[in-house]
């Protein structure tokens, strides 16, 4: 299994009570509460952690994109990835991902990603997402056009990377007389494309069709297993067998000497992530048109948004793994065999977790977990397990 250190770069000094009073850390939580001096420190603290991940032997580091939120300070991840191409010497650098429909000119993403691929001499992984619902409030992009803008932007970027320019591009949303980006990507034909998603069936089907690596975010392991099985089934329908390398699970791991100590230490920080930084009202998460009506009805019926979750819930449902080295090894192996993935996208810092605890966690994962999973592939029959 491969391990990527996935950072959300939260503004961990946020006033959690102010977030509660506002009802969310997103869109309407005033940036008066952002202190630039503290923010600047955090950027460097987090970049230092990414460099540590490289030295500790993580296979990659991951950034992502979110707007107008204390949940993550990466509205544009490019500058951070650019910095890391020089200081992360060995590991892959992934942006998972940039939200294609939010830009009015997707060529800027083709250019930015191609630059990062060159700067990293081919260590770059290109993630494409639609962005979550809140982003459509924050960025003034019509959620009803999200799916078609994503499809068109993806098509344009891949063509910009693979067809010699200049050529003309005429779509519904994007129109260019000259598509001819300099530089071209370093990797041929282009950087690996990874698709993170909460588990939309149309996204899974499309990722399987394109043979892109599919990354399941923030879900109980039983859901992860079901989604990965869907991917394998779609691949089979298309006439190929999906490799475990095409499946990545986005999780959180916290390791301490004992289960009790790990739970005690992780609890306030993980609960802050889940119940404060991540919380938003349904109308912010699901603007009309962002998802099809059937999905919206399912989500409304399940009333999944806004319900507070304890660390015990998160551990029991296999959303996160927290415990002694032995517990974490056992669970991770169990989950790998159940769901059949070969990449763990692991948040080692989460919510309000301070620097010293993050670095201790990263070191423990590197020393106690990573070596046991080097070259380990999913074992057993997953079809049965996922049912």
């Amino acid at each position: 299994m491969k391990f990527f250190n996935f950072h959300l770069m939260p503004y961990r000094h946020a006033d959690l009570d102010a977030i509660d009073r506002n009802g969310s850390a997103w869109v309407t939580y005033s940036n008066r509460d952002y202190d630039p001096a503290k923010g600047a420190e955090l950027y460097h603290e987090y970049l230092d952690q990414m460099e540590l991940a490289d030295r500790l032997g993580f296979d990659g580091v991951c950034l992502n994109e979110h707007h107008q939120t204390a949940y993550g300070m990466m509205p544009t991840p490019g500058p951070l990835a650019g910095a890391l191409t020089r200081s992360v010497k060995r590991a892959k650098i992934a942006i998972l991902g940039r939200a294609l429909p939010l830009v009015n000119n997707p060529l800027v993403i083709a250019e930015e990603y191609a630059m990062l691929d060159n700067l990293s001499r081919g260590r770059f992984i290109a993630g494409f997402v639609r962005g979550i619902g809140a982003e459509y409030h924050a960025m003034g992009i019509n959620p009803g056009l999200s799916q078609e803008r994503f499809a068109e932007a993806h098509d344009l970027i891949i063509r910009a990377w693979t067809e010699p320019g200049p050529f003309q591009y005429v779509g519904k949303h994007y129109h260019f007389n000259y598509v001819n980006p300099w530089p071209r990507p370093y990797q041929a034909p282009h950087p690996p494309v990874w698709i993170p998603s909460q588990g939309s069936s149309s996204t899974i089907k499309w990722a399987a069709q394109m043979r892109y690596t599919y990354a399941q975010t923030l879900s109980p392991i039983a859901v992860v297993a079901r989604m990965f099985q869907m991917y394998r089934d779609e691949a089979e329908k298309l006439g190929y067998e999906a490799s475990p390398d095409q499946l990545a699970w986005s999780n959180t791991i916290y390791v301490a000497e004992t289960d009790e100590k790990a739970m005690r230490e992780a609890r306030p920080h993980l609960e802050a992530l889940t119940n404060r930084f991540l919380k938003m009202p349904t109308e912010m998460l699901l603007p009309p048109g962002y998802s099809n009506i059937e999905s919206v009805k399912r989500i409304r019926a399940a009333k999944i948004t806004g319900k507070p979750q304890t660390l015990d819930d998160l551990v029991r449902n296999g959303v996160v793994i927290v415990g002694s080295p032995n517990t974490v090894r056992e669970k991770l192996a169990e989950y790998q065999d159940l769901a059949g993935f070969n990449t763990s996208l692991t948040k080692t810092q989460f919510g309000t977790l301070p620097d010293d605890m993050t670095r201790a966690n990263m070191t423990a994962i590197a020393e106690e977990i990573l070596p046991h999973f080097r070259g380990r592939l999913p074992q057993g029959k997953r079809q049965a397990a996922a049912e």
Partner: protein
Amino acid sequence: MTEPVTTRISVRGCSIALMRGGAGRPLLFLHGGGGAGWPPFMTDLAARHDVLAPEHPGFGASDTPDWLDNIADLARFYLDLIDQLDLHHVDLVGHSLGGWIAAELAARNTRRLGSLTLIGSAGIHVPGVPQVDTFLVNDEQLIRSMFDSPKLIETMLAQAKRPELEDVILKNRTTTAKLVWQPRGYDPHLAKWLHRIDVPTHLIWGANDRIYPKEYASAFQRLIPGSSVTLIPDSGHVPQVEQRAAFVAALEGFLAAKRAAA
């Protein structure tokens, strides 16, 4: 006959539901983002008019055509519909999103119109006027921001709990968002051409409208030559429902004065 008959009409391949009732000159009512219906004020109007209340493409029982991207598409669709039904001297009335369609239609072509009435209408932007973001409130907050009277709000909240309408509500909201999300509720180019509207125009506004506050009525009045404003007291965004009698009196008074002048 003042109760409506619901039929379907197909305009260039797009089939929509059309409620029609009453007799007299045609009065075409274009509904807002909440969707179509035949509330009591329409029965009042049908006593003197041939009231046509279509359900917009993309809403309720009507088709969602591939060509539907913006309000101007709907304005041109209704120009086609008016041609197809061969209507003349149409008294065009639009509420909120429907008012935006009506204004867009009239700025393009008034050949078959007799008058224009906008109620709590979208379509333009007035700087510095606080508005409720209807996409960032929940169902209850939305109703509370639409109406003025606490009693009516309670009635509306009780009526809103109708799961059998969920599909229609979600469809209407999805289409509304697609049409008005960005820029939020207006087209920066519409205000440039409202001067072209050359039929008598009346702006009927709830005095306490929080969605498109009364400053919007004043702004439309400045932009549409010769237009007049009636503010309905004790009313929010939907005066035709909240102050039915005052609304009907205002509309009929305007239409009668227009006829007298003609």
